[in-house]
């Protein structure tokens, strides 16, 4: 299996720059979550990654070599706007798309049988797509992307509009693809899902990649984590009187703290016990939603301790 490198790609539509020097990589066996607000450039980047669109500049590398139509055949793509022939039966449609991805007729037919069963749409094989529910159409669309066991799976908003059971099915399929060694790149606004599924997350805004790394690394960025401290019977303004605290803000029953330079948890603990009984102290790592908000729309800083 190979790795996908997006290398400084740029794309403009007339005067509007949709993608601006975007770079990131997706390793084989990795699930990469692509998050960003609407219009951030996710769809354009994904279209360029699978060869549907050409970048104005920059390179798409697969296994270190520039992308060709032939290598793109080995990719599986699910566009944001689902695309199928409405009047074609599920079986014919999937077999046709399998053949377009380089399978023989017999292989495509077998793959169609396997994936319609795997995605629980086997009873709809002889029906036309427009007679299916939206959820089942989505399953057909996913099957179309998976038929040829792609080396790279690019899915634009694959979870949108799915019921919880379908979300679980889809998540399982993505994990299986990654276990098989495929590189998986998908976008979603459902950040909890991305957090749960992805090994690596990329956050984009205004066509630029703001940050991409493993979720743990992103959370460990200096300043991203806060210390949560819950003091019982502490008097008001206790946090302002502790030198180890640089900034703070109320959070639930306790307080979120940012440590002063060169101060650590022990310094804080030693000083805090003088103001009350320490009920809880723990590092509070930000969720992806918080990270996303901090990067895209930075929240006001914690109140600085006086």
């Amino acid at each position, binding site marked *: 299996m190979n790795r996908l490198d997006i290398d400084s790609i740029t794309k403009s539509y007339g005067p509007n720059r949709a993608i601006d020097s975007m770079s990131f990589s997706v390793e084989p066996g990795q699930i990469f979550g692509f998050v960003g607000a609407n219009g951030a450039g996710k769809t354009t980047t994904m279209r360029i990654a699978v060869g*549907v*669109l050409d970048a104005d500049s920059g390179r798409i590398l697969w296994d270190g070599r520039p992308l*060709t*139509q032939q290598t793109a055949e080995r990719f599986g793509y699910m*566009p944001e*706007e689902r695309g199928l022939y409405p009047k074609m039966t599920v079986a014919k449609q999937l077999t046709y798309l399998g053949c*377009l991805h380089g399978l023989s007729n017999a292989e495509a037919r077998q793959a169609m049988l396997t994936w319609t069963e795997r995605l629980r749409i086997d009873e709809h094989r002889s029906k036309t797509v427009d007679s299916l529910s939206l959820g089942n159409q989505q399953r057909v669309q996913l099957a*179309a992307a998976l038929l040829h066991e792609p080396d790279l799976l690019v899915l634009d908003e694959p979870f949108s509009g799915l019921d919880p059971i379908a979300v679980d099915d889809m998540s399982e399929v993505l994990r299986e693809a990654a276990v098989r060694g495929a590189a998986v790149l998908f976008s979603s606004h459902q950040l909890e899902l991305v957090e749960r599924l992805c090994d690596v997350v990329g956050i984009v805004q205004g066509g630029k990649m703001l940050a991409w790394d493993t979720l743990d690394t992103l959370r460990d960025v200096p300043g991203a984590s806060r210390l949560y401290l819950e003091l019982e019977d502490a008097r008001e303004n206790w946090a302002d009187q502790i030198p180890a605290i640089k900034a703070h803000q109320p959070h639930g029953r306790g307080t979120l703290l940012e440590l002063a330079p060169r101060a650590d948890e022990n310094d804080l603990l030693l000083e805090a016990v003088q103001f009350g009984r320490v009920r809880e102290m723990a590092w509070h790592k930000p969720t992806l939603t918080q990270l996303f908000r901090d990067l895209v729309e930075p929240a006001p800083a914690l109140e600085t301790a006086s």
Partner: protein
Amino acid sequence: MNSARSQHSAWRGIFLVYRREIEARMATKGYLIGLLGTAAVIVALVVGFAPGAPKTYSVAACGAPAGATSSPGAQIHVIGCSGYANAADLVQHKHADAALATAADGRITIVQRGDSPASAKQAAQQIGANWAGTTALQRQHVDLARLRSDTLAAQPSTVTLPTGGHAYNDHGVGAAVAMVLILFMQIFAQGALIAQGVVEEKSTRIVEVLLSTLTPFRLMIGKVAGIGTAALGQVFAMAGALIITEEVRAGHTPALPGPAALASAVAWFLLTFVLFAFLFAAAGSTVSRPEELQSVLTPITLLATAPVGVATAAAGSLDAHWVNVLRYVPPFSGLLMPLQASVHIVTMGQQLLAAAIMAITAFVCAWIGSRVYRNSILRLGATVKWRQALAA
């Protein structure tokens, strides 16, 4: 090796799109019914416009004088009778349209009904006059055999002087014009189908999935070839119906173009179809919904209509100087060449030259079309202007 694999992949992709188009369009009841309907219409037109068999009239004649040799004409059938009463009976009961009988005293009586056809009455009069002349000559002891021989020897000869008309026999030009116009109508119909197919793929978003495995150009070629084959099926159905009708009703059909003219018309149809097909596909890619198609197809339809007007104007004088110039200019060559071929006033070399010019123009149109298609097919919303699409 890589290049060979890539080429194989390209052809396979085109073939798969082509096959899907064929299956979607030709393997349907509607298409088969359309084929049969088209063939039936052609047969009906050919038979309907065929001149009927010439009417033959019967004239009963009895008592012809010896030596009478009148020839009443091909449409008059002379039957015998036994005398005036029999002749009158035959005419009365419509066994003959007119009759003439010679009485014992040599007087000739013409018998006719009030509704006897003019041709039959005229033939009876002519025969009667001939008999009367023969009888009179016999009375004057004229050697009838010699008279006939001298008359034949003195027959006038005929010289036809040129009148400044066509250098071709225009027998059948009307049918040829009708044939190429019907073929041209196919280009409008199939071109609209191509545009509709493109916009349907765009509006259903399937095109984005297809373009992840195919280049826009390959997708267009497969689509155009598939719909072109379906169109060709209809053309062959029409040509087959024409040829079979001609064979079955030999001598009873109007003057129709021969096999060579038919072959020329089909070849030119294909070239002209390719010329316009990519433009229709490009036009389809510029809009997002099928109902917006009409506005973008109008300019191409007008462009495709121009040769029809020119061909209609040229039909009266296919060897005119301006026609001989315009026949090399696409898209006019698509109609003028098969018309000239139908009256044998164009050589194979001239047709090949015009075909080469047409092929180059078709290639340029294909290039322009694929560029517009590639830059428009993923752009949803407002209609994409050709200038924007070409500049992108």
